[in-house]
């Protein structure tokens, strides 16, 4: 229809009359593609091979950047439960008690390897992953192993802490890099028990040489089923090999890997990106994850974006009503975030308050900056706002105790 003048009613009619596109694919084809999607496969019982044999393997909760005080010097026994909520409550309680005893983050972190290992007859905490940052003091005696786990196409970086004694036994005097740690430990993580998709290890081989890390994909790899699967794959690799400049991606012939949706993908850059938000998994646990859709120009914009809500997947960590001024350093690595009105953390749930502080620290860390919070009061237990927050080593910490 073409005319000189349109009235509103005619526009409405015209819009409704435009021929409607149809999806001509068969229902069976659509269903077959869904059945082939690993995210929709019925969960299988946890494969025993994922765990070190009974009596030696365990996982423990790292709560709010502070190790569970009962694992520390003079602490009591740890009661490891199967319930994420119970363990979170336990951690909060023991954290609070240690704070009341006047212990600082540094004091709470100190522990011997012997005290760190859990008794073999303790039940495994399968859902003990809590959204929290891992600060350097908490890494004493551990080697961090960062990996991009996957939950329904969303990549969540997790920092496994492996006792130094175990790494020393496995690698001797050689200091393992990202690829070595990945090849040794990735297959031992029971992702489904932690509420993640069964994604690792990558279907291919990971190797390292002078040029960096190379990932050679097997011929039947599943990362090319859709544009979203490529994005998930790339983001997972980006999070897993953060200490490398980039990761070369090759097919089995040694040529740059080809993906139907994007063509050749010769390498994946591993520079940090994204703004941290809270992300709730299907099992009800909340972790910290970067939303990579944002592309902030600098750290100040990144912090401001932490208040944004643009999708139902990510929950903002900073309340929208918090007015803050971010001052970037002219030199050095200290960024100052000042709240225009005194910000009272006690008005938030303790876990939300801790996540907010950790999320800010993690987002700033993407720019290699530490954070000083000003004009804020009543921080959650274990946080001392008079000091600059330490640069976190990673998000979502879990201690992985393996047979020594």
């Amino acid at each position, binding site marked *: *229809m*073409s*005319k*000189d*003048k*349109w*009235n*509103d009613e005619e*526009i*409405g009619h*015209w*819009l*409704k*009359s*435009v*021929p*409607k*596109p*149809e*999806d001509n*694919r068969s*229902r069976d084809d*659509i*269903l077959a*593609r*869904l*059945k082939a*999607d690993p*995210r*929709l*496969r*019925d969960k299988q019982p946890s494969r025993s091979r994922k765990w070190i044999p009974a009596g030696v393997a365990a996982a423990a909760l790292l709560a709010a950047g502070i190790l569970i005080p009962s694992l520390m010097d003079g602490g009591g026994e740890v009661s490891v439960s199967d319930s994420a909520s119970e363990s979170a409550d336990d951690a909060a309680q023991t954290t609070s008690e240690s704070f009341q005893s006047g212990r600082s983050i540094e004091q709470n972190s100190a522990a011997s390897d012997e005290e760190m290992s859990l008794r073999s007859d303790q039940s495994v905490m399968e859902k003990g992953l809590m959204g929290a940052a891992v600060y350097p003091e908490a890494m004493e005696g551990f080697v961090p192993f960062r990996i991009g786990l996957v939950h*329904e*196409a969303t990549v969540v970086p997790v920092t496994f802490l492996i006792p130094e004694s175990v790494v020393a036994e496995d690698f001797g005097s050689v200091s393992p890099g990202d690829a070595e740690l990945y090849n040794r430990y990735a297959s031992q993580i029971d992702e489904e028990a932690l509420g993640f998709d069964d994604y690792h290890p990558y279907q291919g081989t990971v190797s390292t040489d002078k040029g960096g890390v190379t990932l050679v994909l097997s011929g039947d790899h599943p990362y090319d089923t*859709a*544009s*979203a699967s490529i*994005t998930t794959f790339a983001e997972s690799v980006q999070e897993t090999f953060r200490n490398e400049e980039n990761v070369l991606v090759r097919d089995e012939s040694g040529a740059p890997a080809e993906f139907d*949706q994007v063509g050749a993908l010769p390498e994946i*850059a591993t520079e940090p*990106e994204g703004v941290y938000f809270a992300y709730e998994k*299907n099992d009800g646990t909340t972790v910290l994850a970067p939303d*990579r*859709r*944002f*592309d902030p120009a600098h750290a100040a914009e990144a912090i401001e974006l932490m208040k944004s809500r*643009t*999708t*139902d*997947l990510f929950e903002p960590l900073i309340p929208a009503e918090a007015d803050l001024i971010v001052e970037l350093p002219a030199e050095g690595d200290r960024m100052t975030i000042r709240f225009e009105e005194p910000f009272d953390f006690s008005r938030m749930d303790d876990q939300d308050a801790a996540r907010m502080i950790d999320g800010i620290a993690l987002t700033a860390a993407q720019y290699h900056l530490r954070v000083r919070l000003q004009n804020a009061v009543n921080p959650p237990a274990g946080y001392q706002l008079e000091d600059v927050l330490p640069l976190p080593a990673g998000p979502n910490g879990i201690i992985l105790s393996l047979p020594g």
Partner: protein
Amino acid sequence: MDESVFHRIYEEYHQDVYRFLIYLTKDRMLSEDLLHEVYVRVLKSFGNFQGKSSERTWLFSIARNVAFDHFRRSSVRRKRTDESFDWETEQPADRGLTPEEAAVHGDDMDRLFKVLDDCTEDQRMVLIMRFLQELSIAETAEVLGWTEAKVKTTQHRAVKKARELLEGMDGWGGGGR
């Protein structure tokens, strides 16, 4: 995976959600991919659907988020590869039609996409929801997370914009058919 849920969703909503994605992307292959993602999210979370909204608006909310997630990731990927694309100021049509986009076109569809492309994102969503998908004002507000007042106001502006564009096209075209 509960196949009975899939079959019911397919029978009642498949073509509607497919069209919705076509109107947003103008790309059949991309729409098929995004629709696959919608099904995955729906089938994984159907047990959690609490019935606070209608099933229809719930589905369109998921489809909208899937599409927007894709656009934002695409714009970040393009920025990273130094292609100039500013999601805030440019529209996908600025880069020209790909063969896949052209495949969904006919004369009326051409005019429709030109109208949609030249609207703001908010206006485009209202035109799609209210006229192409024929959702009510209340349903549109629910899908978009707006107040009904905002839907009405935006609809008024969107229709005005559409009128200007169509009259302009007809003026350039020099006559009817």
